[in-house]
């Protein structure tokens, strides 16, 4: 009765955990996933993804053996799918940190159910992204020259004016910090798994991983401080990473690249694609692992709202690029953008706009926003669109720049395609391992969130009873 009153009260947020489970049930729900016997379906899945990752390995081997020529890159399109894939994956890698850091700072309680998942995704996406800057070099075995390695031999240092060196700093920092952030979050949950472990092997394995965590109040004290600071520094970090990636283009003088709008535009795009990927994976995972009550429609809907917002920002960026191209009166700029939209790559451009700007607009409607199959499809569409956004930016700007005599066109080779395809294999393989061996939901955080919610409810009940009298 009173309960009902509360539920119907518009001022009360819908619950982030449904069915009002006990803390123990939460622990069960999450832990049991990795404690039960490995299902055959998992073996089959990882067999497939691992072999796809194998394809990636072969492609890279062939690439290193023969040279960049096995890809379709040419003059003038010296960067093509390689950097496109890099930016694509890096972009996807942004949702995780965003959720764990920024939403944390904004005290967005709903993040707790999905942040672990998203952080894992971040790590694996960054791992895939990292492949390309390394292997797109003509002599990968010399790529360490991009790092400021002290050397007694050459007396040479990287050129710190180059956006690529900024990239090296940004991406490596981002990968490291995300990994730390992720692990710190894992420690208490690993302790939980440790204490539930039955076999000696698991006991030792999780015992070592959890570093002997025991949830002492003193630990929690420092822990929360560390977590807060990590969130605090990760927020500017995550924004800086994609800004720096955008500098690769913005800092050049190529029409279509040399644009001040790039940093915010890229960050928005990154968040956009990142959330799309989270939705794609989450929709599947929550269904497979029966955690719908922990990852509720509320979570998904919020993510869809964010996609709607960022998608619209991206659309605005596309529009303003055109406006500036016209308004600047720079003939090269003007040409580049007309060429983008109506030139040889018109199809890529059209695809990009329809996927990234139009498709998310459906999320204005709550009905669609809360329809699992629909959001799944849209999230896939958005991922496609965002890949094409990067290709359009790189490809169409390069293939026709200042000198018509040097214009060209780009045809991907089979190696190009298989390499990109292979990265998905790597990504999913890592993901399956994560789902198998680590708690996919931040148990302790969820519990903490539930506890506060319970207090909140208790308070409301009191109020409700007061009203009844």
């Amino acid at each position, binding site marked *: 009765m009173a309960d009902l009153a509360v539920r119907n009260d518009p001022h009360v947020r819908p619950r982030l955990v449904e069915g009002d489970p006990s803390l123990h049930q939460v622990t069960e729900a999450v832990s049991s996933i990795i404690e039960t016997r490995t299902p055959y379906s998992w073996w089959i899945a990882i067999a497939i993804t691992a072999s796809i990752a194998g394809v990636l390995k072969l492609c890279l081997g062939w690439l290193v053996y023969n040279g960049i020529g096995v890809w379709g890159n040419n003059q003038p399109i010296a960067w093509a799918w390689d950097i496109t894939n890099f930016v694509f994956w890096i972009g996807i890698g942004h949702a995780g940190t965003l959720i764990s850091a920024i939403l944390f700072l904004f005290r967005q309680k709903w993040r707790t159910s999905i942040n672990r998942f998203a952080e894992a995704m971040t790590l694996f996406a960054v791992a895939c992204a990292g492949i390309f800057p390394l292997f797109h070099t003509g002599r990968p075995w010399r790529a360490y020259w991009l790092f400021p390695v002290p050397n*007694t*031999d*050459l*007396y*040479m240092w990287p050129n710190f004016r180059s956006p690529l060196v900024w990239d090296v700093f940004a991406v490596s920092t981002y990968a490291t910090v995300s990994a730390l952030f992720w692990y710190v979050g894992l420690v208490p949950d690993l302790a939980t798994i*440790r*204490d539930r472990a039955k076999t000696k092997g698991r*006991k*030792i394995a999780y*015992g070592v991983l959890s570093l*002997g965590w025991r949830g002492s109040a003193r630990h929690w004290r420092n822990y929360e401080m560390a977590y807060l600071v990590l969130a605090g520094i990760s927020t500017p970090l995550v924004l800086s990473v994609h800004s720096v990636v955008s500098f690769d283009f913005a800092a050049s003088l190529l029409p279509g690249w040399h644009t001040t709008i790039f940093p915010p535009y890229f960050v928005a795009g990154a968040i956009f694609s990142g959330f799309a990927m989270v939705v794609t994976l989450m929709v599947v995972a929550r269904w497979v692992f029966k955690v719908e009550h922990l990852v509720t429609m509320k979570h998904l809907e919020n993510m869809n709202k964010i996609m709607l917002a960022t998608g619209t920002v991206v659309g605005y960026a596309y529009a303003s690029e055109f406006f500036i191209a016209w308004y600047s009166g720079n003939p090269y700029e003007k040409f580049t953008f007309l060429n983008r939209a109506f030139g040889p790559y018109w199809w890529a451009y059209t695809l990009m706009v329809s996927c990234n700007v139009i498709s998310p607009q459906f999320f204005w409607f709550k009905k669609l926003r809360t329809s699992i199959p629909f959001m799944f499809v849209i999230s896939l569409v958005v991922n496609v669109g965002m890949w094409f956004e990067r290709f359009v930016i790189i490809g169409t700007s390069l293939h026709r720049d200042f000198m018509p005599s040097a214009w060209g066109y780009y045809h991907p080779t089979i190696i190009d395609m298989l390499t990109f395809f292979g990265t998905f294999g790597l990504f999913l393989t890592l993901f399956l391992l994560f789902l198998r061996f680590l708690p996919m939901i931040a148990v302790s955080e969820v519990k903490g969130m539930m506890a506060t919610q319970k207090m909140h409810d208790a308070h409301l009940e009191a109020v409700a009873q007061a009203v009844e009298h």
Partner: protein
Amino acid sequence: MALIFPKTIDQYVRIGGALVAVMALGGIGAYVYFSHPLVADTGYSPVQPVPYSHKLHAGTLGIDCYYCHNTVFKAAHAAIPATETCMNCHVRVKPQSARLEKVRNSYATGEPIPWIQIHKLPDYVYFNHSAHINAGVSCVSCHGRIDQMMEVKQVKPLNMGFCLDCHRNPAPNLRPVEFVTKLGWQPDRDPEEMGREIIAAKHINPPTNCSGCHR
């Protein structure tokens, strides 16, 4: 709950951690040492087909480097002498010596003597002997005291850093041209100061940009 780890575990963990740290540092140290040009690039001293002793010829007998390596003042390459050059003397000096057999054969058959190259720069480096010699850089600066070596050995690393050190501050390695082949020569005054004078006199301004050596 049954303990997973015994009471004593933590001290072992600490000891283990300490060991790992020490080994890591040691590894890095070893790498730096063994990869350092001074260690890695020096000391190469293969056995030559003919047991020719620079110590004897250049040192004891005091034959000028220029007598055999006769192109150093004119050309980029310091020519390896033709067999003929050896025979100039050895038709009379020790004409029967067994150790000179290969030389005599070469002279007779026209088959060159396969000397083994010791001082070798990568093929993307373009070093010009004449430019350095005429500026007053002595052979000794890069080759060491050849005149004291029975078998020639690389004593200078000859890596890019080595070149740059001198190109940035040539003064210590400069001397009047007439002494460049006098490996043991010591100036009677402060070499630095003398070097600076030579630099001023010859407007010596060694390049430190890439195309100075790489083309």
